[in-house]
């Protein structure tokens, strides 16, 4: 396990969170998805070695973790942009102009859909219904919601995002 721990280099904070999380479940395997979330929160994605690391931690086979990583859309196997932009694609948002918002975001941020900008700053992806249909169209930047988006608001949001870029 040592070589894996070294490879993972998780912070003490994350390791503590992992220990606390595993404790919460009557069956360890239930912690697999939460552990993937915790590792992704620290690393920005799920590194290959995390699969074996989690398997060992939860006394599973790596395939048991691998099957989850390859299923859930929110688990990423390569780094995303520091500002991860999710645009709702689904009907209620589309009816109120979600596709146009997505187009404007791509133009303003210089980043194509499903890609990460060259400087690693932005990723844009379409996601399915974000449960904000009453304030459509909706965009998420990391874990923050932006609602009732129109062209002007999208341009202003992009200006803000670029201002705080590294």
């Amino acid at each position, binding site marked *: 396990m040592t070589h894996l721990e070294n490879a993972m280099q998780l912070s003490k904070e994350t390791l503590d969170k992992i220990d606390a999380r595993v404790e*919460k*479940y*009557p*069956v360890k*395997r*239930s*912690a*697999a*998805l*939460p552990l*993937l*979330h915790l590792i992704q929160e620290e690393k920005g994605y799920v590194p290959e070695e995390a699969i074996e690391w989690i398997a060992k931690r*939860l006394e*599973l086979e790596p395939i*048991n973790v691998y*099957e*989850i990583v390859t*299923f*859930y*859309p*929110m*688990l990423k196997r390569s780094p995303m942009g520091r500002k991860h932009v*999710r645009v709702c*694609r*689904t*009907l*209620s948002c*589309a*009816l*109120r*102009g*979600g*596709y*146009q918002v997505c187009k404007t975001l791509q133009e303003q941020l210089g980043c194509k859909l499903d890609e990460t900008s060259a400087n690693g700053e932005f990723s844009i992806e379409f*996601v*399915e*219904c*974000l*449960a*904000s*249909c*009453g*304030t*459509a169209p909706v965009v*998420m930047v990391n*874990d923050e*919601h932006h609602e009732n988006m129109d062209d002007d608001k999208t341009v202003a949001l992009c200006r803000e995002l670029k201002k705080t870029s590294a």
Partner: protein
Amino acid sequence: MPEEKRIILKHADEPGYTRDIECYLKHGGYEVLRKSYKLKPEEIHSEVMDSGLRGRGGAGFPTGLKWKFLDRKSGKPIYLICNADESEPGTFKDKQIIHKDPHQLIEGMMISAYSIQAKQAFIYIRGEFFEGARILEEAIEEARAKNFVGNNILGSDFSCDLVVHRGAGAYICGEETGLIESLEGKRPYPRIKPPYFPAVLGLYQSPTIVNNVETLCNVKHIVEMSGKEFAKIGTPGNTGTRIWCVSGHVQKPGYYEFPCGGLTMGEMIHDVCGGLLPGRELKAIIPGGSSAKVLKADERFSGKLKDGTEFDWSIWDIPLDFDGPAAAGSMSGSGGIIVMDNSTDIVQALSNINAFYAHESCGQCTPCREGVQWMRKVTRRMCAGDARKDDADLLLSIANQIEGRTVCAFGEAAAWPVQSFIEKFKDEFEDYPANGSVSSETGDKQLV
């Protein structure tokens, strides 16, 4: 104009109302929990039975009956799971509760857990609700500090822990057996019923109750006012209030809580939501989340209700309860009403929906895994400018081969939009221009 009756969302948008426990306690919070723990668990259950409460997640199954199916003889631990995966397109009600009044959910859950004698409870929340999960975890710690959650709740000999578990962006986790698989740390492939009814073989093969957020909140109010009083709200068989979520082409989209059957579709759209956008006419309404069959503007709906009364409705006359949209051949589902006006390219709208189901099929059952991809391919090709006269029949044939041939109801959820769109707008599919999208003078939005 019909008046909202806010029970679940009573405080949610009140000025000055905050989501911390002090505010909740000031408004009488956890008093019903105290009352509950003085009752016997089966007394609470019988209040829920008397209330006629039906599940608010989509299927509308009677909650008390669901609890009754619990296998109490197995000797295995009983689990309670709150389904907060809210991901049916058009639905955004549970999020309001979680963000604005999380303690109401926790109180409802701890009352329900006591009634079914679950010593461990979970809230399965969709992965995109980052903030919602944080809010709930903070609220649970506040409640734990006051002994409303955890060991020997309120000094009783009943203990129940509550854990928030986040999903990771998969719609299928809203299906209760898929949710259970996900919570077990597996791919969320739904289980086949029988034998895997959660009340008998649920989480860790133990008896499990899975209820929606709004449903569990209702339990609190049922114990507070009594099941019989609760049953007086709404109409027979459709008791209590419902939070309807209206989105799409209306002036005032939003969430509105009304007694079941307390208003018609017309009152909801025209009076509550301020009508359609200026200069537009209605084209269609999906009444219960995107899986529900579409209703066409000029349709007539007639037949006999459960109690034998005959009805003959326009789309505006449909009563908003569980049975109204069902009588009109659709369903109230999750309460997500999606309105489309005459600027909508109906083929694009279906293509948008097809893309959703193609993205979300878990891939376990062949008819669904393959069929949803084909339906998406066909409508996408139509929208890209290569529509063919027989596409309508082709789409119908694919949908008909999915429906009824899958482990879970996702197959139906994906087939019903295709079947209903084509049945009701067949000419628009057959005459769809070969050069792609119908141009519209009303300035419609791109949907694909």
